[in-house]
Structures are given as structure tokens and as C-alpha cells.
């Protein structure tokens, strides 16, 4: 792409800023940071042990339900290139492209949750649409009870709307929404947003529900690219037919 050098040139100050910050951090700050990270690692390791046990249990239970468990996806880290795109879209540019095997419609995460998906791939960069873009919708389910819905971007970074929640649905403030995996584009089970507001409208078929994305959409720096690995996941039998129907409309990963 002819515009790649311009984008890189504009990105230089932010890279320089990072380098300067990295190099000029004082010893005490670094020591504190190391201590913090060590504590975090210990905590995470403890959690991971529990998680492994749970994963095995999950696989065992799922095998009883006659559905395979996806062994985990391959992920890779990319960085956001600090350039402004069209101000009327929530798009960002990342520093990996088709040379790094990024593909169109690839899911993008950060450490807190789902960020969006790739919409355009150049050799060394790709364009990512964030879940807050008004053109974006993501299939989600309530983590607590498995109720499935769709979260639509609003054009405001801190808010998603769930326009298709019936008034009598069991949903309340603070509910975690995770990806449902329907549609076959996003891996299932990743956190998307936390419900912040539920207003039931007795006169209308649907409640007004908004949620706040768990990923930090307004100050992202590093993102995770996800490749589906291992056997294709199949949901338990009760929503299998629905997922199948979605796949017929939208073949998953067909663009790879």
C-alpha cells in the first residue's frame, strides 16, 4: 500500500514516546512494578491450576453431552498504530497484516474482553472495527443464565445496546455478557460487556438495555489476534440446530 510509509511516519512520535518512557523509568518504579507483576503471576498461577481442573471437568461433561470441546485458540499480539481514521467510524489500525496471516473477519481481543474484528487487510497493517461502531453487532449471551442476544455498537466507546431483550427476561445490572459463538465468527465464552442499565418498557415488546464493554476501547495499546485452533467447537445439542442455521448463512472462517 502506498500509504503505509505515511502511517508509519505519523506513528513514530508515539513509538519514541514509548521508548523514552521505557528507558527513563526509575529503579524504584521498576522494582515496584516487578513486585506487582510477581504477585500477579502467583495469583494467576493459582487461578490457572483451578482452571485446568475445571477445563478437564468441562471436557468430561461435554463428552457426556456428545459435543467436542475446543482446545484453545492460537493468539498473537499486535499493536495499535496511532493514526486517526475516519472520525465517524470506530476503526483502528494495527501493525500486522496478511504477511502475519491476519485474515478478514478475524476476532480481536484485549486482555479484558472482545475488541472487534478485522475488516480490511493490507500486507503490513490491518483495519479493525471496534464493537462500539454503530455498524457492528456481536452475538452474546448472559453468563449467568445463558440467555442469548445481540449487542449492537452505539458510536459511543463506553456503551453497547441490546435492543432485542424481551421485557420479561432475567437480566439485571452487573450481568456479564460473553460471546455466544453463534454466527461462528467469535470464539465463545469471551467477556464482551457488563450490563449497566435495564429499563423495562411495559408498552413495548423489548426492554432498553445498555452495557459497558469490558475491553478498554478508548485506550487500547496492545491487542490479541485469535486464530481458531483444534477441532471445530460444537455447542451442546439444545442450540445445535440454531448454530447450524447461522453457519449456513455465514460460513465460519470461510475467508481464511
Amino acid at each position, binding site marked *: 500500500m502506498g*500509504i503505509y510509509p505515511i502511517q508509519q511516519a*505519523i506513528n513514530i512520535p508515539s513509538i519514541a514516546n514509548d521508548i523514552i518512557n521505557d528507558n527513563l523509568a526509575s529503579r524504584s518504579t521498576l522494582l515496584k512494578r516487578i513486585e506487582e507483576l510477581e504477585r500477579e503471576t502467583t495469583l494467576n498461577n493459582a487461578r490457572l491450576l483451578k482452571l485446568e481442573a475445571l477445563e478437564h471437568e468441562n471436557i468430561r461433561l461435554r463428552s457426556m453431552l456428545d459435543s467436542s470441546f475446543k482446545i484453545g485458540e492460537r493468539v498473537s499480539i499486535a499493536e495499535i498504530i*496511532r*493514526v*486517526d*481514521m475516519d*472520525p*465517524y*467510524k470506530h476503526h483502528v489500525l494495527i501493525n500486522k497484516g496478511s504477511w502475519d496471516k491476519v485474515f478478514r473477519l478475524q476476532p480481536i481481543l484485549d486482555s479484558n474482553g472482545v475488541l472487534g474484528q478485522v475488516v480490511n487487510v493490507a500486507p503490513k497493517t490491518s*483495519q479493525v472495527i471496534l464493537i462500539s461502531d454503530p455498524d457492528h453487532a456481536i452475538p452474546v449471551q448472559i453468563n449467568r443464565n445463558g440467555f442469548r442476544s445481540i449487542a449492537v455498537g452505539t458510536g459511543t466507546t463506553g456503551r453497547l445496546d441490546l435492543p432485542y431483550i424481551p421485557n420479561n427476561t432475567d437480566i439485571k445490572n452487573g450481568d456479564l455478557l460473553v460471546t455466544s459463538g453463534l454466527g461462528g465468527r467469535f470464539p465463545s465464552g469471551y467477556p464482551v460487556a457488563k450490563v449497566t442499565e435495564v429499563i423495562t418498557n411495559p408498552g413495548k415488546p423489548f426492554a432498553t438495555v445498555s452495557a459497558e464493554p469490558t475491553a478498554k476501547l478508548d485506550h487500547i495499546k496492545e491487542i490479541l489476534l485469535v486464530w481458531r485452533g483444534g477441532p471445530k467447537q460444537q455447542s451442546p445439542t439444545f442450540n445445535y440446530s440454531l448454530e447450524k442455521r447461522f453457519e449456513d448463512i455465514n460460513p465460519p472462517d470461510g475467508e481464511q
Partner: protein
Amino acid sequence: MSITKHQSGWVIIASIIIAYALLIIPLPEELGYARPEFALLAIIYWCIALPERIGVVSAWIVGLFQDALQGTMIGLHALTFTIVAYIAVTFYHRIRVSPLWSQCLTILVLMLLHQLIFRWIYGFAGRPISDLYYWSASVFSAVMWPVVYSSLRIMRRNFEVK
């Protein structure tokens, strides 16, 4: 002058590249809406200064690259730039002789035209822009015109672009 007809074309290209850079420099979100259309301003300047050399086709190419740069619908900037460049080339005599403040008004009108067409097509594509901030880009473009005009004129005279 008649022997070396076209020269220092790289200055024009450099000015467009600088304009592109100004278009994607990160700004706070609120200021992002008011960002002047630098590439279009540069194209208008070159249309007025060198109408026999820069015109509709160059504007189309510059617009196409801007679409790629900003991730807008492909051809959208190309279309509006072409229309604005056509007007600028048609009226270059009048724009050239008018004083700077009245040039600013002309630029304001051209920018509003660009934004109007842009907004129409955005609306057709199903994502209408409804806030008033949108039009601030035109005003800031007109405000920036004297700066763009004088710096490009210095460039043109120093490097003898013809």
C-alpha cells in the same frame, strides 16, 4: 518558460504527502471532527496556481488515496474532490485575483459543498451524520486557508514549480 514547461512536480507530491500526514495525526476525539481537509485545500491551491497541470484527474487520485488512508468508502473522497477541483479549475481566474479574506469565503463554500456531498452519500449508505460538529471541519478549513495558501506559495516560488 516555454522550453521547460513542467518542472518540480515532486513539490506538489510532497505537499500532498504532508497534507495526508496532517490528516492522520492523532487528535483528541472532539478535535477530530473539526480537522481541516488539508489534502483538499492543497488540491484547491494547486488547481488555482497551476490549472493547466493540476485538475480533476489529480484530485481524483488524491481523493482515492485519502479513502485508503482514512478507511472511508472507496471513491467517496475521490468523487467530492473531483467536483470541488472542477469548480476550482473553472473559476481559477476569479479566485486568484480576489483578496485573501474573500478567498476564505470561497473555500468555505467549496468545503461545505464537499461535506454536503460526503454527508449525502454517507446517508445513502445507511449511516446518517446528524451532529452540527460535522460542519465545523468546513469552517476550520476556511480558517486554515491563509496558512495553507501562503506556505504553498512559498514552496511554489522557492522551487519554481511550473
